[in-house]
Structures are given as structure tokens and as C-alpha cells.
């Protein structure tokens, strides 16, 4: 049994369009919010996947990002802050036939929900987890988040925050994630591609989406995402290809003797010294070193798929155990179960 491709029963391919995935609820984010573009990318992707709206479940926690399920004409649960990965795990394991997505912000998933996230990743539950990282708490009006840079001045840190931020890709890799990618709200094509890859992955797929909160943290990613900055600031990871970027591909990434990824001028080292990206390495070290290139999105930052390996998805394994048990012991017989301890009869 394969975990949730969600193509449903009929088998008859129905051609669906974006509007089939749009609910009748008015989209309520601030004008200019990056969430709009992400929603669009999802709604554009889904018709291409062949999945039927009724076989999709979007689960979220609380936050601006977490409102997304309301806008999807699918099944959805807008749960409580931080718990979306848990609720979604329940959906996905109860019904491995479904296609389950988890949506949340950086606070929802890495602050209060950090534990559920890392456990969903290590378990490899078949979930497509999209974390909208705006490096701020949007919904509660602007406190710093676990991805905010040190020294961040916010309502709760008027003298600057002290906490060293998480690098979401690093922590996901540290948590044994089988699929990790990063994209951003300024590039619909890239987003769609990443979401497609996540969707195709069997198991837990974690996608960090850099998202602009134009109200409380405007321009957080400008240094890397401004149109003219991008060529020199975005490192587009491509499987099987040397890691290379820059307007004319003049920059690249090599591995030093400590296993650290370093940015170099290609001309200085020669193209064959560049790291050739391989998403499928069993060892997550390559993906991890790449994730360390940018401590904070103001130096050249990799986007794309860091890691995509095969590992049994939890739901499928669980299902197998049930099937194997029936094969071994026959389908459960309640009467026999009650008699599994010695019995005696009183006449």
C-alpha cells in the first residue's frame, strides 16, 4: 500500500483547475502579504497533480500562515497553536489514502510546535509540511520568532532579542528529515516546483518558504530576494549539478577539509572542485553543510531541494504491520480475544 497520493477511487482522470481548489471564503491577509503568492502557488500546483479536492486535507495551527486551509476547497483543520503536525499525523495514519498538508508559520512550527515537527520528521509521516518563515509573529502583531536574527527589536524585545535563531533547514536535517527544501514567496515557479517535489515524496517533506510579512517585518529577505540581488545571493541547488551561482555563474561552492561548504570564485578553483549536489545521499552531511552557507538570509543562501531520500513512510509501515498481523493470526475475533485468558463456566 502506498501512502496518500490521494488520486482517489474512481481512477477516471478529471481535469481540475485552480478554482476547484479555492473555497468560498474571502482571503484575509494584509494587502501585500507574501502569503497570497504561496496560496496561489499551491492552488496552481494541485490541478496538475491529479489529486481530487476531497482527498486533500490541509491542517494548520494558529498564525497568519495557518489561516490558509480556510481558503482551500478541500478538507481542512485549523487546529491550535503548534499542534498541526500532531493532528495531521492522526489524519495521515488513520487514512493513508489521503494527501495531507501541514501549513504553519515559524512560530507555530518552530516555537510552540517544534517538538511535534521534529518528531513528525523523524517518523517520516507522509505529510507535506510547508513552513512560512517570515521571521516574526504576524498574527499577534509583531514579536520576534525563533528565526529572527539576534538583536531584533520587536514589541517583546525593545532592547533587542538575545536568542540565537534556528536555521530551519539545519534543524530539520538534524531531526532526520527525509525531504528538506527551501523556496521563497517571490518566485512562484520555484515554489510550485518545490511543492511538487514535496508532494511526490513518500514520507515527511519539509519545505521552508521565506515569506515577507510586510506589516511587521517588511523586507526581511530583501538582501537576497530583491530582483537584482538574486543572481548573486540565491544558490539554486540542482541535483547532479555542480553548485554554482552568480550572474554569470562565476561563483560556486566547494567542500573544505572540515566538510564545510565554502563559497568560491569558480575561476579561482576550477569547475571540477565544485561540489556536485546530490539530494539522495544517505548521509545528510552534504545537505547540512549547504544549509550552513547562510546563517541568516543576507549572505548567499541556497534554495531548492537539500535532501530527498527514500525511507519507509510511517503510514505505510503501520499498514503493513496490520496486514502482516492478519496474515499471521487471521482477522481479529472478539469472542476469542475475550477468551484469551483461562475461562470457566458456572452453570
Amino acid at each position, binding site marked *: 500500500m502506498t501512502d496518500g497520493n490521494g488520486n482517489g477511487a474512481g481512477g477516471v482522470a478529471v481535469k481540475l483547475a485552480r478554482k476547484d481548489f479555492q473555497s468560498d471564503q474571502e482571503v484575509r491577509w494584509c494587502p501585500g502579504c507574501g502569503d497570497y503568492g504561496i496560496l496561489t502557488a499551491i492552488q496552481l500546483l494541485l490541478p496538475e497533480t491529479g489529486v481530487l479536492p476531497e482527498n486533500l486535507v490541509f491542517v494548520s495551527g494558529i498564525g497568519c500562515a495557518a489561516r490558509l486551509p480556510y481558503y482551500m476547497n478541500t478538507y481542512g483543520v485549523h487546529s491550535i497553536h503548534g499542534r498541526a503536525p500532531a493532528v495531521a499525523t*492522526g489524519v495521515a*495514519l488513520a487514512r493513508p489514502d489521503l494527501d495531507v498538508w501541514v501549513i504553519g508559520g515559524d512560530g507555530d512550527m518552530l516555537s510552540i510546535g517544534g517538538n511535534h515537527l521534529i518528531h513528525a520528521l523523524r517518523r517520516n509521516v507522509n505529510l507535506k509540511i510547508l513552513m512560512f518563515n517570515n521571521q516574526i509573529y504576524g498574527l499577534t502583531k509583531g514579536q520576534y520568532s525563533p528565526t529572527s536574527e539576534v538583536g531584533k527589536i520587536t514589541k517583546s524585545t525593545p532592547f533587542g532579542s538575545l536568542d540565537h535563531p534556528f536555521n530551519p533547514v539545519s534543524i530539520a536535517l538534524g531531526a532526520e528529515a527525509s525531504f528538506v527544501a527551501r523556496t521563497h514567496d517571490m518566485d512562484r515557479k520555484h515554489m510550485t516546483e518545490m511543492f511538487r517535489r514535496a508532494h511526490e515524496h513518500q514520507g515527511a517533506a519539509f519545505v521552508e518558504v521565506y515569506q515577507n510579512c510586510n506589516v511587521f517585518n517588511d523586507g526581511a529577505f530583501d538582501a537576497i530576494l530583491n530582483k537584482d540581488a538574486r543572481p548573486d545571493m540565491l544558490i539554486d541547488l540542482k541535483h547532479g549539478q555542480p553548485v554554482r551561482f552568480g550572474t554569470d555563474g562565476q561563483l560556486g561552492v566547494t567542500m573544505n577539509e572540515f566538510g564545510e561548504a565554502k563559497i568560491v570564485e569558480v575561476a579561482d578553483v576550477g569547475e571540477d572542485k565544485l561540489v556536485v549536489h546530490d539530494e539522495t545521499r544517505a548521509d545528510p552531511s552534504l545537505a547540512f553543510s549547504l544549509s550552513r552557507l547562510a546563517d541568516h538570509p543576507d549572505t548567499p543562501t541556497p534554495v531548492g531541494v537539500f535532501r530527498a531520500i527514500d525511507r519507509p513512510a510511517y503510514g505505510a509501515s503501520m499498514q503493513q504491520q496490520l496486514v502482516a498481523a492478519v496474515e499471521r493470526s487471521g482477522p481479529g475475533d472478539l469472542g476469542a480475544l475475550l477468551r484469551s485468558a483461562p475461562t470457566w463456566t458456572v452453570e
Partner: protein
Amino acid sequence: MTVEATSARRAETLPQVVIRFAGDSGDGMQLVGDRFTELSAMFGNDLATLPDFPAEIRAPAGTIAGVSAFQVHISDHDIVTPGDTPNVLVAMNPAALKANLRDLASGSTLLINVDTFEQRNLDKAGYAQNPLHDGSLAAYRVYEVPMTSITVEATKPLGVKPRDAERSKNFFALGLICWMYTRPTDPLVDWIKKRFASRPEVFEANVAAFRAGYNFGETAELFDHAFQIKPAPLSPGEYRQITGNVALSYGLVAAAQAAKLPLFYASYPITPASDILHELSKLKNFGVKTLQAEDEISAAGIAIGAAFAGNLAITGTSGPGVDLKSEALGLAVSLELPMIVVDVQRGGPSTGLPTKTEQADLLLAMYGRHGEAPMPIVAASSPSDCFAAAFEAARIAIKYRTPVMLLTDGYLANGAEPWVLPDVDALPDISVPFATEPNHGDEFWPYLRDPETLARPWAIPGTPGLMHRVGGIEKEDGTGNISYDPDNHDRMTRLRAAKVAGIANDIPLVDVDDPDRAEFLVLSWGGTWGATTEATRRIRARGKNIAHAHLRHLNPFPRDLGEVLHRYAKVLVPELNLGQLSKLVRAEFLVDAQSFTRVAGVPFHAAEIENKILEMMQS
């Protein structure tokens, strides 16, 4: 060898006996207790047991903290408690004696493994003098038996090393008790054989020890005669012994079958609830899914997700876990999805007494969520009743699309009693149809309620055309869309309350046991059923009138409860907390219910309730 026949002296007949096996955690007391219970069950006695585990950490051998005990009450008549005070204490070491002596009435019998009463062990138990010699046991009938050394002797011919041989001494004790109470021995030998099939030397040693114990009784001059407790006239049926946790697990499986739903149990291990997870994890061929979550919050979230997806979803835990699930349960109340939360109550607050029993989570179950978030509450009354209670919790959850709190406790969970097996084919159908069609023109309104039950439709993912979103923000009555409208919130708050309150019309009236039109009612709930029942029997045996009502449903109450309570001049509510049910009935019915409480981590003794009743009858 069928040893009964060999007994020379005539056995004296007793109506009942309460035996407590006590020893070090490593001494295998639970095991021999279980065996003795099983033998007695098969023999036809009625019985009830009370295991008493040492606290969660493994204490050093020989210390009070390491004492493990198992009490069993067997009788020739219907009984409902594991007995107030043991008639016989088997004490495998000084610590076991010290820890348990205070529970014994004078005149009781002590069977003491005298081999262990040496300085080191006396020190560890904190005995300044050897109690066997200082006269402090004068009030008891003390039998000093060198259990260890006889066991070692008896197993020597088998080539067992003394160190290993010692480990069989619990079977010696069991053999001795089996002789004393003329139990059949063949089944026991068979059991040992099966259990230790792969280790024949252990099997042989244990059998040898068991026989040595039996023969010791037979031959030693210590004992006048053996006793016998005749089978009890139990109602006809096929019986087995069952603990509360196993009964509860089976009840869930039965409910899932009766509801035609897959069962999904998500839990995080915690004493004394873990065994439900262990039990259900074995039942994969029943299609039962179990998941050990990273914590209790996750387990609750997983259950919510599974319920949304159309499973019969359960999350089980004990008090600390219920605390943690509070927020998720509020969500479940708001989502109006069927789900069961099992709370196997233990001693609190905080980590408290994790292996002991208590009933102090009732008000948490009622009120432990922010906002107005009502949940039905069902409680089990005896170990075997956990089956029916679980079934009833599921029925309510499914029919009313609501999370239900199912309360048991440490005593019920681990205690055992005989149970007439229910006819599994006669279990009522508790299934409800999933929604399959639009219910409002060609729209689907997820919060359009059934006018009778007020339940909302359960439309599960995969159903074409019924796609909808649910969430914890207040929803518009009917459509389920987010609504911040003040009047709608007031209406929805009252609707949620009315739905739960309305369950009162779907549960039995109070079953009052009042043969003599008494003026005094005892109201019990949960695990105090047994002690209360026994207490009222004793009161009646004294020729006095007393009524007893027991509540399975704590929220809502049976609809005639107020009327029933007002019928009595005196109402007493015995509870293992500081008066939680009494608070509820006082508030609801303005009845001057008197609270009788004890919070000591142990079940009530029937005598405590009996005395309290007598005292109140006086005044």
C-alpha cells in the same frame, strides 16, 4: 499428583479469606498473587484483587520502598472488594512485614520467611530489634517458615545453584498457601510448565519449590489443619478473570466493532495507564492502530486528526497527561468530533503517588479547559466494568460527536475480578452514518445539527462534495464559517452545553438500591462502588436501612438525580478526593450532601464507610 487428596487432616470451611502476599519487588509477589487468584477463580470462588506496586523507581532490595504486595479476597459468596484487612499476610522479608503489618487486625495470621530475618535485612527495613523476638507480634498467629532454605534444599537434587534456587521461593510460599486453602494444584503445575517451557531447569525448580511448600503445610506440625472456601454461587455464564486496563482495552475494541469504525489509540506511556497501550498494541490483527506519541499533547492531537478522518479515536493517560491535553480537548469540544479520553486516575497533585489510586480528577474532567467547554464524563465502577464503561463512552462520543472523558483509577486498572463474558454478537449497534450528501440545498453545512441529538454531521475526507474546514475559532451556527458575531457566540456556547446536557435523556435513571425505603442514601461513583456496596451490605446486616446509588454518568447526571437525592434526609458521598462529586451535586441540586473523604492512595475499606454511616446515623 493431585495433592488435595493427600491431606490427612480435615479442612475447616470458611466463607472467605483475604490473603496478602508481600515481598521485595524482585520476589515475584505479583506473579504468585496472580496464580493464586487464577486457581481460585477456576475453582469457582468469587474474588477481587488489589496489587500494590512499589513506587515507580526500583528501590534497593530489602527496603520498605521496595516492597511489592498483592492482596486477594476469595469467597464462597458474591464479593465486591479486595477486602479491608488481610486475614493472612505472607511476608517474604522484614521490610514486607513492616510495611504491611499496620493493615492487619490482631489475630491475623503471619507466614514469615524467617530466613530473611537477619541483621542486614532488619537494618534495611529499619527494625531496631528483630520483631520475631521482641514480642511485638504477640497479637498475631505467627508462623516462621524457613522458605528460602527449604526451597534451596528441595531444588538441590535438580542441580540448581543456591543463588538461582532462592528465586523459586515465591513458589514455595504459593505452595504453602495452596495447601492451607486446599487449592487444586494441577493447573498450577501446568501453568509453570507452559510459562517456563523454554527453560526446563527453571520449570523444574519452581515445581519443586511449589511442591515443597505444599508438602511443608501437609507435614509440618505447625498447622492444625487446612481451610477450604467453597465455590461461590455465581450467576451462570462463562467467566474469566480480568483487570480494569484489559477490560477497558477490550471494551474499546468491542465498541469499534459495534460502531463499524477502525480503532486508533494514541498515547504516551504513563503509570497506571500504559497497559492499555500495551494491550491494544498487540491487537494489530483487529486493525487496531496504536501510536506511542512524543507526548500527551501530540497524542491528543493525533486522536483529533484520526477522529476527523473517521476513526474511533482514543487517547489514554493519567492525571498529568490530562492536564497537558486540556487545550487539545477544548479544540475537540469546539470541533465536535467523537473521541474518548481515558484518565486512569492516580495520586496527585503533580507527580504525587504515581502507582497509587485516587479519584481526584473529576473536577478536572468537568472544568479543566478554558472557556465553556463541556465534556460528558463516564466512570467505571469495578475492574470488569471497565469494559462496559468504555463501550458506553464510545456510544456517547459517536452518537453526539463529542469528546468523552472516561474515568477509571489505579485500583480499577490493576485490580482483577471474575467477569462473565458478554455475548459479543449481542452487542448493540452503535454506528452512525457518515454524511455523504449536501444537507442545505446543494451546500454542505458542517454545523447543521441533528435536531434531536444536536450532533453535527460527520463528513470525512474522501467524501466528494463535502469538503469543509473546521477550526477552533467560534463558528457560525449552521454553516460553521468563522463568526465573531456576539449573539452567535452566545448561541453556540449554549448549544454546545445543551448538546451535552441533553445526553441525560439517553442514559438510564439512577438505579437506587433501596430495599427498605431508607432515609439515608450513600452516593458513590467510580472505583468506590465496591467498598460502598460492601458497607451498605454490612449496614443492612446490622438491621439498619440504607440506600445506595452509584453513578456511571458524571456529566450529565441522570435526569432524576436531583429528585432522588431530595428524597433522602441524609446523603453521604464517599470519595477518594476532598469532596469533588459532593461539590457537583450540592451546586446542582442544593442538597446538603455530606462528603466523606480519604486521600491516601488506597481504596476505601468498607469498614471506613460503614463506620461513617453509623456515625451519621447516630447524629
